């Protein structure tokens, strides 16, 4: 028996029918069709599937879809506005902060959660924010540099 749920996905009202026990990752990918969210371990250890729920970074693979009813969910698919990239996306490109690209959406969302909360993070803040996200390709330095670059760009834009 499937249950209807409604939530806000990247600012748009969205509805899906979910089987009881379904996780948010599968619901976003299979029912809604948002393929920007990736699954890496399906057991809450790698951070690849990170999305924002009401602004907080959450592991969508271990989040029951039904608990997301009425909440606001953000994914990488909603980062850019039209052709304009989010400063984090531009900084990741600039800094070569993606290699295979599979952990990148989760990395971006963990970083966004940080910058939304703290526009002027220290390096330690960035390390802490992405400490639950595993990257097996580039090493973390370019990613940390990219997040700091994006933060500095953000600060300039807001000033």
């Amino acid at each position: 028996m499937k249950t209807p749920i409604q939530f806000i996905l990247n600012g748009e009202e969205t509805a899906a029918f979910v089987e009881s026990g379904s996780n948010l990752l599968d619901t976003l990918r299979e029912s809604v069709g948002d393929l920007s969210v990736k699954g890496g371990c399906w057991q809450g250890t790698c951070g690849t599937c990170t999305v924002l729920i009401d602004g907080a970074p959450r592991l969508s693979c271990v989040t029951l879809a039904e608990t997301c009813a009425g909440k606001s969910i953000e994914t990488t698919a909603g980062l850019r506005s039209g052709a304009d990239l989010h400063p984090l996306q531009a900084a990741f490109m600039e800094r070569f902060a993606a290699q295979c690209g599979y952990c990148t959406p989760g990395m971006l969302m963990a970083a966004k959660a940080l910058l939304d909360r703290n526009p002027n993070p220290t390096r330690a803040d960035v390390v802490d924010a992405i400490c639950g996200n595993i990257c097996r390709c580039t090493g973390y330095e370019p990613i940390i540099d990219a997040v700091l670059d994006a933060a500095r760009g953000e600060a300039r834009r807001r000033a």
Partner: protein
Amino acid sequence: MLEFRKDIFADERDDNLIEIGQPTARQDILGHVTGTSPFYDDRRFADLLHLKVLRSPHPHARIRSIDDSAAARAPGVKRIIRAADVPVNLNTMLSLMAGAGAGYGAAGQWGKDDEPSLASDVVRYKGEPILGIVATSERAALEALAMVRVSYDPLPAVFDVEEALKPGAVSVNPAYPKNAFEYYGKYDHQKLRFGDIDAGFAQADLVLEGRYQMSPIEHAPTETNGSIAVPDTNGRFIVYTSTQALFFSLDTAAKINAMQANQLHFIGGTVGGGFGGKVDTLTEPLAILAARLTGAPVRYRLDRHEEMQFGSPRGAERIYIKDGIMKDGRVVARQVRAYFDSGAYTRLSSYAVVKCTAHIPGPYTIPNVHADVYCVFTNRTPATAMRGFGVTALDFALECQMDKDAIAIGMDPLEFRILNAYRDGDMKAHRREAKNCALVECAQVAAEKANWPLRDQFRRMSSREGGSPERGGIADRTRTPAVSRAPAHTSAGRTRAPSVPTPVAPQRMAYERPAPATPVRPAPAQQQPASRHVPPPAAPTSAPAGSTHGAPRFSSVFGTRRR
């Protein structure tokens, strides 16, 4: 950060580089940062079926019986795939490269078919696939898997490479009953012999032994191995896959499914991390078979546990090194005995062992070298490629040993390396001339960066100076052979032509560094004992002066071929 040392070997290139040194965006990075790169699992099919595989819980066991009758009736189950359903249920990956009939005998250069896609009688490692279930959802497939009853007779297992080679050890792989891969169908290991190892140790002031070991390493890509096979028209199948080796996987899948390669259309190239762990074609053959048997698109995706348990790792290695060292710092003998843990089946390990042997004794000129390297079967997960496999663990062992050697004779480890490093013109243990060497310079720059003090004489040494065939201990037969090695036959009686010395001009490539006009032997620590070998007068060289472009300074184990 990236730094180009154009001062080093500046006369060997004109540095007309266009791309190197310039930042360039990856062509696929926009897709990566927007979450739109097409990974194999980002394809949607309305009628997609899911394949999950029953795996052995034992490292070694005989399968007495399999009862899948309840699973076959479980909700959502479309098809059960058994060993008997696999058209060609025995394969070895490298048979594609030089298999039977390629001039290497029935076993091929890299091995006999030794691995089933689905085990039927015996399982040889924990996680080995036994049976597949295709269902309407992963969950339905997993629930049906839980209903399959398998009766096993557990067998003794062997997990240690040296235990596996002992007489009377448990036999793992029936293709190789003695647990050692057979090269050319008859040699149970790879050998390297150069100089006289016993004389080397007898001559040495100090002999030092070491034992080194590396555990298996899982690549753990963030995207697990997987593929989706979709029936196309005309009996063809489109396969979306995470593979790192698209055509290799295509041919392997064709062989196992007894299909023509042109019946398969593989789409991939967007790989969520591979590092060698997505070469083994772990999922495509069964996904294609499942799609054939059901007529529907089928996804076979490993979960994280399967990736870690069944996904092939970098193989374990155990390496023994025995070095003979002179008080002046020269390594005069190196004996290596190494064991490469292939796991239960061959995969790529036969090749890894050749790479390992080819890398001995490391980038050092040692006149007496003796190595035996074994490719061993154990009841562990079959090993595969990973970032320099065959060489990485050996380098770890060799460089640890170099440090211990240096400390043992009271010499600085970096100076010790500089002293023993290959120089242009040295004869390697593989009887190839060392060319375009740069280890001396690498060590000097590393020392400079680390503020590591080097004595003047070591700072002044150069890869271009001091090399000679005799430094390696034997006359150079490769660079300037005295006699043509091509056997000459008469048309009538296959009589060997009289051995007329035919000077052969040394073959040099345009990018190779010219030989130094006056070879200078490196002058190491104060009083170097008189060498047993007297350096000959310098051979005249007809090599071109300098190179014509900024070619990489590579010289592969196969000689001077650029790769």
